[in-house]
């Protein structure tokens, strides 16, 4: 599939380049194959949603892009995963650099047991910024970007874990933004949140995608339809390995799916 042909639904009419590309990627946990031969292009500065039934390998796929699967012993990846045309699984690629450029927001908000300020400053500090003023600037800018500044500007010294769940998740987004990544991976970022907090995060994603490439895994079909420009539908085969069934502009995929399985899934007739 070719990402270049998708106009984004965020108002801009330019055609986006491919930011991330997986080419014939398979992933194994020990002997178990979790992903089979996935080829997909992720357009730059757009939201790509990944949907599919539980256990089909959405999280596993997402974690390929910042090499988080490396942390699990006994995993093996074949094929090519490219960021701006460069294979990030090559030997000479620095994984720290990859993770700086490809940030990740997790399913459950996981702020560190530190103050709000230190949570956001964590990344910049690790990457060598020591100057207190510079850090303050970064923290403020990131919190503003994450639409959290007004709610926490008087509580920067409070523990991040004392915020509400929705605020915690936006704090985690701010923490990622502070590192100035190019890509943000989100693994069901709203599944632990209430509808109001969910809407806030969705709004945020729409704003952020003018600058960032976003991939979101979601179980919520409406959410995928609301926030994403492109949707990819994953399924598992008989041996439970995940495969890509269909991908395309979100409006097209939801209104006019090419595959029968996709139609069954999005209309809820699946399983």
């Amino acid at each position, binding site marked *: 599939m070719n990402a270049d042909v998708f106009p984004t639904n965020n108002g801009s009419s330019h055609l986006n380049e491919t930011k991330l590309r997986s080419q014939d990627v398979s992933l194994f946990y020990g002997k178990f194959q979790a992903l089979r031969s996935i080829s997909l292009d992720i357009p730059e500065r757009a939201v790509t949603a990944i949907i599919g039934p539980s256990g089909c390998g959405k999280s596993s796929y997402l974690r390929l892009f*910042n090499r*988080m699967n490396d*942390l699990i012993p006994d995993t093996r990846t074949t094929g090519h995963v490219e960021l701006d045309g460069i294979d990030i699984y090559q030997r000479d690629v620095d994984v*720290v*650099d990859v*993770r*700086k450029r490809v*940030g*990740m927001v*997790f399913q*459950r908000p*996981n*702020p*560190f*047991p*530190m103050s709000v300020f230190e949570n956001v400053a*964590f*990344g910049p*500090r*690790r*990457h060598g910024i020591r100057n207190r003023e510079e850090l303050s600037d970064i923290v403020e800018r990131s919190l503003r970007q994450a639409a959290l500044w007004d709610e926490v500007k008087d509580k920067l010294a409070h523990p991040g*874990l004392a915020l509400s769940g929705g605020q915690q998740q936006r704090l*985690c987004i701010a*923490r*990622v933004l502070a*590192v100035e990544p190019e890509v943000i991976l989100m693994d069901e970022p709203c599944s632990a949140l209430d509808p109001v907090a969910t809407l806030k995060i969705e709004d945020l994603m729409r704003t952020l995608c003018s600058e960032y490439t976003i991939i979101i895994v979601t179980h919520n079909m409406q959410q995928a339809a609301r926030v994403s420009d492109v949707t990819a539908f994953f399924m598992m085969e008989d041996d439970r390995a995940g495969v890509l069934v269909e991908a395309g502009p979100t409006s097209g995929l939801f209104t006019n799916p090419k595959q029968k399985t996709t139609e069954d899934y999005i209309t809820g007739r699946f399983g």
Partner: protein
Amino acid sequence: MPWSKLKDSDNKTNAGTSPKRFPRRSRHGERIIEGIITANGLIAIVVLVGVLFLLLRTGLPVFSHTPPWEFFFGTRWYPVSEPPTFGIMPFFVSTLWVAGISTLIAIPLGVGCAAYLAEVAPAHVREAVKPIIELLAGVPSVVMGFIGLALLSPYVQSLFNLNTGLSGLTAAIMLSLMSLPIIVSVSEDALNAVPHSFREASYALGATKWETIIHVCIPGAISGIAASIMLGVGRAIGETMTVLMVAGGALAVPASPTDPMMPMTAAIASGIGNAVRGGPQYQALFAIGIVLFIMTLFVNLIADRVLERQKRKFART
């Protein structure tokens, strides 16, 4: 009792709906077990109070012949001169030196080892190292004393050019080894209790393994680590046989860690044999026991507090 009534009615209502999920256990056996557990707790408290009472009753009369000022701050311990003097400063300072230095050695060693085991070591290394550390905890202190005498003290002597290798430093090194197991195992537990999601978040932000350990894992486990250190300190303060054998046993107030010294425990152990039961020296030795008791109690209380905080810290996640 209302309690037994409640149980009865519970059994009845459950019996009809889901008899399998609530099998009827022998309430008799449970009562007996409850009783035994309660009795154990009571015995512990009774013994503790008894020990404290005995210490106070035997030790406090020391102040009838030695004023507190002289006892606590006196630098001369001459129990057999006429009149005898009982100043515990040499022992107190020795204990501070020995416990302090052993803690300084044990902290980086113990926390480093725990961090290695919890965060870095592959499973098979961890499985191999843990029993060894537990074995170290089981070495009798008299054997540690032998090791200090035979193996360590010659090194200390030649390294620092001393008249004798039996010194506070030698004792401190042996004690640090002895407090290592408790520090490693409690710290490792604390590190393992740090939620995995913190590590993931750290790695995902581009932190290296080392940065993650230093800035996320250790701070996240800091209260448990602090508690483990307290427990180690408690051990170092209370340990007797090893310090008796290798600390040197000098009666002067030590000025440097390489001086021979006599920590409080060693003073009690070496003096009690010659003391007339109920006599002034006997009383003074018991009074040292009171001071020791209070010190270790204090350290343990702090450790408890800190551990409690650690448990509450991650309750939300």
